[in-house]
């Protein structure tokens, strides 16, 4: 017999998609049964109370979680988000129900051995409910009490060689796409760069010293599977400079219908026979491709590396060999001044260990943002407020046409005095000798 009636949630148990309600119920039953005799360190019926309070929210159309509270582990200013229920008498199991963010491994590869250890820890010292994963990428432990925070941190660091992730006004846990691990499109080792920078900037990740949150995300190619361009303060997008490698025989195999276009991604409908002109050449945004007899030609200089042709014919076309990444900066969701996409700052940079050139750009940006950024001002908003030119100045990057979609349409240039011959100091009396008042 369930502790709380959940008639509304129960309606989310049917239907084909995995039901989180069924899963919560199964966990509630697991804790109640407790076949492994776990000495639960937070209330055994905590999941019953999660279901109860969620049902109440379904009824009220409002959340029943209070504002955070200042809880955490000693020496860190992030990684734990305080959470309290606003109906603690009815749902005592979740009265204190803090979130812990656990830094996820690159590309979210796991061994079962490791995951099972995390499960054991979280069943013992927390609710047993997680997010796999949070939006930023962390493993999220949902719900434990204050006294357990240090204990969990101690076990994580001592037994599992595992640290917390970021929260608050610090570097958030960086996240990467699967990259070279299992993708032929990746122009650099996303995991290696993500891990290196995560380790390099542990202090920035754990101890809030920034005006607001700061996110790194690593996309191996312009397809952008981790959406870095939409949500990272610095987005690292793999790219290359030389020719797309073409296997002309394989091109013919696509034309002949031997290989399915787009790796078979359109298999659910009859789109007719593959037409390389219609599906590839005519859709190329720069019109840099054409057929000469049976040979596919690409004018590399005009290619903007959008990935379409490579995506359509992955067995025939491959990324070039002169690889690196582009850095785009300032992406963010709408809060506060509207959404921003990342803006191109570094068109091309090599991604090679120890990544010193990349770190130089990062640190120049941080110096500027920490000096000039207002409380809760994201990097993108600072760039808007002080100008893209200012960003170029502080990062010591020379302006190039690649930086803009188009040049400005107004002539209101903030000339600097040193840019104007003779400077700005002039003698008005000398002027008046030739121009009467």
């Amino acid at each position: 017999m369930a502790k709380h009636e959940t008639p509304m949630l129960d309606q989310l148990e049917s239907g084909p998609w995995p039901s989180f309600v069924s899963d919560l119920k199964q966990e509630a039953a697991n804790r109640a049964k407790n076949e492994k005799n776990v000495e639960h360190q937070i209330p055994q019926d905590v999941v019953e109370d999660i279901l109860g309070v969620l049902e109440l929210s379904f009824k009220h159309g409002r959340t029943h979680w209070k504002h955070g509270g200042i809880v955490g582990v000693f020496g860190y200013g992030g990684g734990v988000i305080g959470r309290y229920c606003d109906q603690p008498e009815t749902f005592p199991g979740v009265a204190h129900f803090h979130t812990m963010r656990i830094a996820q491994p690159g590309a979210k590869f796991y061994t079962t051995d490791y995951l099972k250890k995390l499960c054991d820890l979280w069943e013992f010292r927390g609710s047993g409910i997680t997010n796999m994963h949070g939006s930023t990428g962390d493993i999220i432990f949902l719900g434990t009490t204050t006294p357990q925070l240090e204990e969990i941190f101690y076990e994580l660091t001592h037994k599992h060689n595992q640290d917390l992730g970021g929260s608050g006004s610090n570097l958030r846990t960086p996240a990467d796409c699967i990259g070279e691990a299992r993708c032929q499109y990746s122009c650099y080792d996303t995991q290696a760069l993500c891990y290196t920078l995560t380790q390099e900037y542990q202090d920035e990740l754990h101890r809030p010293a920034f005006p607001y949150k700061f996110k790194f995300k690593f996309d191996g190619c312009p397809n952008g599977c981790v959406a870095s361009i939409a949500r990272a303060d610095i987005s690292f997008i793999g790219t290359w400079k030389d020719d797309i490698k073409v296997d002309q025989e394989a091109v013919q195999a696509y034309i002949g219908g031997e290989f399915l276009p787009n790796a078979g991604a359109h298999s659910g409908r009859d789109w007719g026979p593959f037409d390389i002109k219609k599906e590839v050449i005519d859709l190329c945004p720069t019109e840099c491709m054409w057929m000469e007899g049976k040979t596919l030609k690409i004018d590399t200089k005009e290619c903007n590396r959008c990935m379409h042709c490579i995506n359509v014919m992955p067995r025939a076309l491959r990324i070039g060999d002169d690889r690196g990444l582009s850095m785009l900066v300032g992406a963010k969701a709408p809060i506060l001044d509207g959404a921003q996409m990342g803006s191109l700052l570094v068109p091309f940079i090599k991604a090679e260990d120890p990544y010193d050139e990349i770190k130089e750009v990062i640190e120049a940006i941080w110096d500027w943002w920490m000096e000039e950024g207002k409380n809760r001002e994201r990097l993108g908003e600072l760039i808007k407020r002080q100008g893209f030119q200012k960003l170029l100045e502080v990062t010591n990057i020379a302006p190039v046409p690649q930086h803009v979609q188009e040049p400005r349409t107004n002539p209101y240039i903030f000339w600097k005095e040193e840019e104007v011959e003779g400077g700005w100091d002039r003698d008005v009396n000398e002027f008046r000798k030739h121009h009467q008042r």
Partner: protein
Amino acid sequence: MAFISSGYNPDKPMEDRISDIGPRKYDEFYPPVIATNKGKWLYHEYLKPGVLVHVAESGDEVYTVRVGGARLMSVTHIREICEIADKHCDGYLRFTTRNNIEFMVDSKDKVDPLIKDLESRKFDGGSFKFPVGGTGSGITNIVHTQGWIHCHTPATDASGPVKAAMDVLFEDFQQHRMPAHVRVSLACCLNMCGAVHCSDIAILGYHRKPPMLDHEYLDKVCEIPLAIASCPTAAIKPAKVEIDGKKRNSVAVKNERCMFCGNCYTMCPSMPLADQEGDGIVLMVGGKVSNRISPPMFSKVVVAFIPNEPPRWPKTCETIQKIVEVYAANARKYERVGEWAERIGWERFFDKCELEFTHHLIDDFRDPAYSTWRQTSQFKF
């Protein structure tokens, strides 16, 4: 339940302390076929929806079976995932950015038994535990935020509407019949801890009532200057109020200036916005993050408000389904929702999707607004 120490000594927190070690290193967790062939993959193919093969220069192959998952997940469920990975995948697995789970095997003969096992597992309530799909030109898992399960600022739930929407879109999770992939995302408030603002279809929780003012407590729990500074439209000013004959410092809100962002509530718990009638869902359409063919695009608001309808959000789901069907029937191969809408014109998009165009959909927020009005005589009737 007796307290059991981990070994941590609260009297000496720095004793034996380990910190700043970061995540576990990625290559500890690579399956052998990944470790061997990293950086040497040649191509991939979708064998069927949810099943990929990647072929390496060495001739090695890795077969991936992708399954959907609710990102809200219990340890019991994770243990079951581990059990499957132990049985079929030598104890390795991974999760995707969109909360799918990927089981990898190194030869083709291991694929069918794995799929059979995955598809046979159901929750007591009847739903699949591990539906295979989420690839190619279909509709993959919805990325989402916390919602009512654990957040203090949401204007809608997350797991609930996602479950309801995925039930409606389920066939397309397991098919490849869309013109291009369709990314659906949900954020339960406009803090958007997920990047829903660049999704083909974005489900966004939104408030519509200005904050209530808990004058009695406001000055005690909030920094008034921070609350004032938090407002992007300068709608909040300091105020003195009288409660039980006592003057208190508080704030006043110019309601007609409020854009319901909730930023003040983030700074000050005495300014709650949440409301059963006021809160609901905004639908946004046509965003993308990929640079493929066209540059990344923001999603555009196409439905200003749909009330929260727990437990299954029928109006929201029905509207999404309609947009998906009209897109599927009309867009060209490879064309994303936003590219299609731009090609036919947004006036035609509203037409075809039978969506009402209201004044709410015309941008009036600062500078970028102007560039979204029509500055040409080119339009369609």
